[in-house]
Structure formats: structure tokens, C-alpha cells
């Protein structure tokens, strides 16, 4: 095993950065990684944001099911003491739950036997200036877990808005290491959850609205040492392309395009940050994520296809080198940042061949399915038929065939572009039910007007260059500012939607599916809902103290299945509410789109946990009581 990996590394000169470290890591890696894979299979746990490496957000638990979900009631709650948008979900490993908050990025460990008592907390002191360079509220998408080995104790990994990645002892909360992965003085922040593969902590980057050149970095879990770092733009040896990059699909482009598709040095401030979700295939030893929008938003200022922003990446976990990259929106004109969730499944394609697939609902309104071994494009369907910037995606060339009527350019206000910059899908962590072969999508139904303007780049300052006005799409109610959300069940092989339902507001946080035949999700106006996975019928809902922009999760403890969700309205859709803005184009176009939200919910911050009949740890009245 070790020899194979070292031999592969020796063939990739640019990755020799710290090859000796990787070699050392791989000796113990198999053990730690296997442990994490096993933990994922146990429904007592929720060990990563996507639930498992496939990021399918699907639980086999069925104690809560279609027949009894109406009896779901609050079991216990937890306040983070922080306002602003609460994205992501807590982790559960055994009897411990780990809860995160938005800036100042506090972390709490609680024991599920008595969740009213905090076991440890980590409250970092951050430079408050970090808030000023956060794009869209001060959200954080959650924690990661590494299970430990004979050298190093189990760790909770967190990212901070000020650019730090921190490894905490999972038992004590003590800082094991803390490294810099972003400098706020040049606009680099962090909102994304770390992702653990083997003994690596993989961390993305945020800040494309400030011209940050995106990068993905791996740190050694034991020491915090940087193992590799690869960028989204620039020279190939800084992007990290394997020798056989895109060999299965040369028409996607191969060499030197990180420079050739930019004018002069524009790639240095060209965006492509990757603040979304990651997935991993332990058999292929490849991980997957998307790079985001090019900077600035004003397309006239950056001639070229702007590679490799807006790209679905398949990279080798040990070296980080890219085996394939498929750019979904070349020369983006609408801020369709390509960072959304990557869900892995094994399904038969239309010809009956079983394939390893990756399905990605993109901001641009297209849901893509690729062969995750080769990068072959299998399908590319509109998530809603109102998407109009693109006529269709040519599956042979992989190119979107654009409708010039909805292009953007200097000196022109483009109207009624669908989707809006917020996308038909954003950071929501969606789900895949392997029994029904349905992807359950939480969707934004938003369109926009767009008018670019010129501005020079100043490091650490906003570098957007477009005014945007978002509003509900044609199926919603623009006058009343509602009807901006949808929930849909999608089959990636047939391209058909089993069902679809309109929602009052965007479904920002994503969905969770269970073997109980249920699809759970939270809403911006503060409901958690459960629908019938087969037909979309609404079976249960509960009004939370504040709007939900995180994803639901589930775990089983002491024989009881729980469903939990963060509440705390905020994030991009609620910047108007959080910062009390009224100009409809403020908040990068979000304020107008969600002008009605403040009449439906207000700020808050915490976690609500539900069980059938509200069962839980405090059914035993002695739990948490004063003991002599």
C-alpha cells in the first residue's frame, strides 16, 4: 500500500512539496480512514456534514416513518448564544454531540445523556475585522471529525472566519494545532466545513467577491503541516493537474488553460474559491468539490473562459492532483458559483451499465451527473424549466449553449435572467435515497436583473462590479415577494421529476432523506417539515424560533431516533433582515428578493432536537438535577 502511493507520488514532481510527510501519513492512514468509514455506517452517528463520504444525506433509520411522523415533537433544545445565519448541522459520535456557531465560531461539546450540560467549549478570539470582509453574513457550515489513532487523539476540526483552521481534542476541547489558511487583509475568509480524508484535513477557501484566487489545501491531522495546496487559476503546476488530466475527455480542455483563458494577470484575482461541500470515494481514493465564480462578477473585465473557475474537480486524495475537471459555466456572466453539494451514487445508466456517479445541482440551474471515475458527462438537466440563460447542455461537447438574450455586458441592464445570482440551488446539502433512486432537491426559484459596472481591484476590498436585483421566478408571486422556493424529487437517469412542490421562500439549507420514507428540510421562515418521499405530500411541520438555513440530521441514542436542525436565519438570503437593509439591490441583490422574510421570522440561534412524542434524555426527571 505504502509503496504504491510513494511510487505514484514520485511521478508527480510538483506534488513532491512534502512527499515525505505523505509517505509517513499513509502508513497509519488506512486505519483512521477505515474507522471513519465504519462510524458512518452506524446510525448512532452523524460524523460529517454530508452524513457519509457519498454525501447522500440518507439515513437507514426508520423508527420515525410516514405512519408516525405526525407524532414528532421537541425533545430538547440548545441555544448557541449567537445570532446570524446558522448553516450546517451538528455532528454526533457516540454519546457526544458537537455544535458550531457562526462568527465568532464557538464550538460546544455536549453529552447526549444530559445535553443541558456543556462538556467543553471553544470560543476563539478573532479579529472583528473578519466580519467586514465576509461576503454574505458570517455563516459557518460546520465541523469535521477525525477518529484518532495510536499516536494522536480523536479531533474536531473547525474553520474560522478569520482564516484559521483549528484541530481540537475531541475529548477535552484543547487546541492541538491551529494554522492560518487565509489572510483577511487580502479578503480571504473561511465559511466552509473542513473535510477529513485519511489523515488529511482538506480545507477550501472563501472570498471570490473580494477577488480571492481560490485554493484547496490539505493539512496533516497529526501536526498541522501543509501537505499540498492547489489553486483554481494560474499555471498548471499551481493548479495541480495530473499527467493524465482530462485524458478521458480532452474536449473539456487540458493544459495551460489556467493562464490562456485569462487576459494578462487577471487570474491572480480571478476567484474560483471553493466554500461548498466535498465528497470522497474510498475505492477510487478521489475527492470531489466545485470551484466557484470568477472575479469580478462584471464579465467585461475578464475576457476568456476563466478556467478553472466553475469546475467540478475529481482529485487524488493523497496528492491533490486533478484527474479531471469539467467547467460547467465557462466565462460566467451571472455569479453561478459552482461550489454546491456533490452526491455520489451507484446506478445503472440508460444503457443498463452500473456506474459510479456524481450528481451536482449547480447554481446555474442545471443538475449535472458525471461518471466520477472519468469525468464523463452522463446527464445535464434543467432543475426548473424556467432556466433561460442556457438553451441546453450539449452532452457531446459538455458546453452550455447560451441564449445571448440573457447575457450580461457593460452598459446594459439585462432583465429577467433565470436563475438569479443566488442560483436555482445554493449551499443546501441535499439528499439521495438509493431505494427510490431519487435526489431530493431544495431549490431557489429566483430570477434577476443585472447591470455591471467597472471598478479597480484593491486587495481586501469588495470586487464585484455588478448591481443585481433578485426576485421570485415566474412560478412565484413577484408582487408579494413570495414563492421563491421549491422542493423536488429528481431521477438522474431518466431526467424526470417524481414530484415537485412550491414553497414560500427558498429552501436554502437542503434536505435529508430517511428509510422511513421521509424527506426533511428547514425553511427560511422557520419551519422544519417532513414530506412523503414518494409523492411529496406534507406530513409534518413545526415552527422553529427562527428561520433555518442549515440541513437536518438524524441520530439514534439509547434506542430513540432523533431529528435535529439548526435554527438562526441569516446567510445570503437574509442579509437584509440581519443587517436591516432596505435597498432591493443591497446584499448582492438579496434584499428585494426576500423583502417579506422579516414578517415571517426574526434572528435567533440554536439547535432543536425532535423525537416521537418528544421522548428524550429528560424523560428521566433525575437527569440534570442537583445531586448530593
Amino acid at each position: 500500500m505504502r509503496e504504491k502511493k510513494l511510487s505514484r507520488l514520485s511521478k508527480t514532481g510538483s506534488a513532491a512539496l512534502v512527499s515525505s510527510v505523505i509517505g509517513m501519513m499513509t502508513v497509519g492512514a488506512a486505519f483512521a480512514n477505515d474507522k471513519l468509514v465504519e462510524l458512518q455506517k452506524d446510525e448512532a452517528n452523524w460524523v460529517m456534514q454530508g452524513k457519509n463520504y457519498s454525501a447522500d444525506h440518507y439515513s437507514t433509520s426508520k423508527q420515525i416513518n410516514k405512519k408516525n411522523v405526525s407524532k414528532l415533537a421537541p425533545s430538547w433544545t440548545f441555544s448557541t448564544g449567537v445570532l446570524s445565519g446558522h448553516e450546517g448541522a451538528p455532528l454526533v459520535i457516540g454519546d457526544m454531540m458537537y455544535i458550531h456557531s457562526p462568527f465568532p465560531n464557538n464550538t460546544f461539546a455536549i453529552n447526549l445523556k444530559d445535553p443541558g450540560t456543556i462538556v467543553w467549549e471553544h470560543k476563539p478570539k478573532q479579529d472583528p475585522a473578519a466580519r467586514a470582509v465576509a461576503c454574505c453574513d458570517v455563516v459557518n457550515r460546520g465541523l469535521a471529525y477525525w477518529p484518532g489513532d495510536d499516536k494522536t487523539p480523536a479531533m474536531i476540526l473547525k474553520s474560522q472566519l478569520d482564516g484559521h483552521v483549528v484541530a481540537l481534542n475531541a475529548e477535552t476541547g484543547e487546541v492541538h494545532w491551529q494554522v492560518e489558511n487565509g489572510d483577511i487583509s487580502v479578503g480571504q475568509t473561511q465559511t466552509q466545513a473542513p473535510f477529513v480524508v485519511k489523515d488529511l484535513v482538506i480545507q477550501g477557501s472563501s472570498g471570490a467577491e473580494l477577488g480571492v484566487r481560490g485554493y484547496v489545501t490539505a493539512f496533516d491531522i497529526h501536526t498541522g503541516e501543509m501537505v499540498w495546496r492547489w489553486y483554481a487559476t494560474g499555471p498548471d503546476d499551481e493548479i495541480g493537474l495530473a499527467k493524465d488530466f482530462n485524458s478521458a475527455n480532452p474536449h473539456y480542455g487540458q493544459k495551460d488553460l489556467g493562464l490562456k483563458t485569462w487576459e494578462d494577470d487577471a487570474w491572480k484575482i480571478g476567484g474560483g474559491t471553493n466554500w461548498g461541500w466535498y465528497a470522497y470515494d474510498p475505492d477510487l481514493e478521489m475527492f470531489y468539490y466545485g470551484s466557484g465564480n470568477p472575479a469580478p462578477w462584471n464579465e467585461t473585465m475578464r475576457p476568456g473562459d476563466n478556467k478553472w473557475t466553475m469546475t467540478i474537480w475529481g482529485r487524488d486524495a493523497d496528492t491533490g492532483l486533478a484527474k479531471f475537471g469539467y467547467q460547467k459555466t465557462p466565462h460566467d456572466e451571472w455569479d453561478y458559483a459552482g461550489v454546491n453539494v456533490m452526491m455520489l451514487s451507484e446506478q445503472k445508466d440508460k444503457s443498463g451499465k452500473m456506474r459510479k456517479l456524481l450528481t451536482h445541482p449547480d447554481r446555474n440551474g442545471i443538475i449535472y451527473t458525471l461518471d466520477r471515475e472519468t469525468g464523463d458527462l452522463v446527464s445535464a438537466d434543467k432543475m426548473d424549466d424556467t432556466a433561460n440563460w442556457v438553451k441546453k447542455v450539449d452532452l457531446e461537447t459538455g458546453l452550455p449553449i447560451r441564449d445571448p438574450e440573457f447575457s450580461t455586458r457593460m452598459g446594459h441592464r439585462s432583465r429577467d435572467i433565470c436563475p438569479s445570482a443566488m442560483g436555482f440551488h445554493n449551499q443546501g446539502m441535499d439528499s439521495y435515497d438509493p431505494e427510490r433512486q431519487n435526489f431530493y432537491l431544495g431549490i431557489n426559484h429566483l430570477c434577476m436583473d443585472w447591470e455591471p459596472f467597472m471598478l479597480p481591484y484593491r486587495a481586501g476590498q469588495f470586487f464585484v462590479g455588478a448591481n443585481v436585483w433578485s426576485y421570485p421566478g415566474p412560478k412565484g408571486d413577484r408582487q408579494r415577494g413570495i414563492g421563491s422556493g421549491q422542493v423536488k424529487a429528481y431521477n438522474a437517469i431518466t431526467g424526470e421529476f417524481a414530484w415537485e412542490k412550491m414553497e414560500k421562500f427558498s429552501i436554502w439549507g437542503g434536505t435529508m432523506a430517511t428509510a422511513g420514507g421521509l424527506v426533511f428540510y428547514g425553511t427560511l421562515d422557520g419551519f422544519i417539515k417532513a414530506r412523503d418521499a414518494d409523492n411529496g405530500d406534507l406530513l409534518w411541520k413545526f415552527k422553529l424560533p427562527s428561520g433555518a438555513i442549515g440541513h437536518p440530521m438524524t441520530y439514534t441514542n439509547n434506542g430513540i431516533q432523533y431529528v435535529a436542525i439548526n435554527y438562526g436565519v441569516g446567510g445570503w438570503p437574509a442579509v437584509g433582515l440581519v443587517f436591516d437593509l432596505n435597498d432591493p439591490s443591497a446584499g448582492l441583490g438579496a434584499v428585494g428578493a426576500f423583502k417579506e422574510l422579516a414578517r415571517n421570522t426574526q434572528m435567533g440561534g440554536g439547535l432543536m432536537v425532535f423525537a416521537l412524542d418528544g421522548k428524550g434524555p429528560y424523560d428521566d426527571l433525575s437527569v440534570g438535577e442537583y445531586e448530593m
Partner: protein
Amino acid sequence: MKKIKTLAVTGATALLLTFGMSAMAYDGTKCKASGNCWEAKPGFPEKIKGSKYDPKHSQAELDKQTSAMEAMEARNAKRVENFKKTGKWSY
């Protein structure tokens, strides 16, 4: 009759211009090479440097991110080195 003819010609010209512009417009499918398919939109330059759309970025500003990354990597490397030596993390 003459008026009708003039109108017809004018209409046809307008139609031609509309379709002509549309056909010329950037739809992302005319590639110079694999993965390199961008075209300038009608009325816009291939290169913005020296054009009225030149943002005239300062080279010093453009290079600041690279410097920041190098500095961070150097600081982190020192922290790791110390950690390996002492077994204690010092920020």
C-alpha cells in the same frame, strides 16, 4: 406602391440586422481550441487592456495575495517545526 416597397425593404433590413446580430452573438459553442471557447460580444474588444474597459489594476495590488500566501505558509511552517521539536503547539 413605392412606400410599401420602401417599408418592405426597411423591414427586411431590420430583420436581417436582428438575426445577423443574434447569429454573431456569443453562445459559447465556437471554440478556438478544446476548453477555450470564449468570444468577444458584438461591440466589445478581444482585449480590454488599452480599451475603455481597461480597469487599470495596480500590479502591486495584484501581487498582494501571492505575498500573503507565501508569508502564511512560512509562519505555519515555523509553527509546525516547533511543534515537532517540542510536542507543544505555539501559535
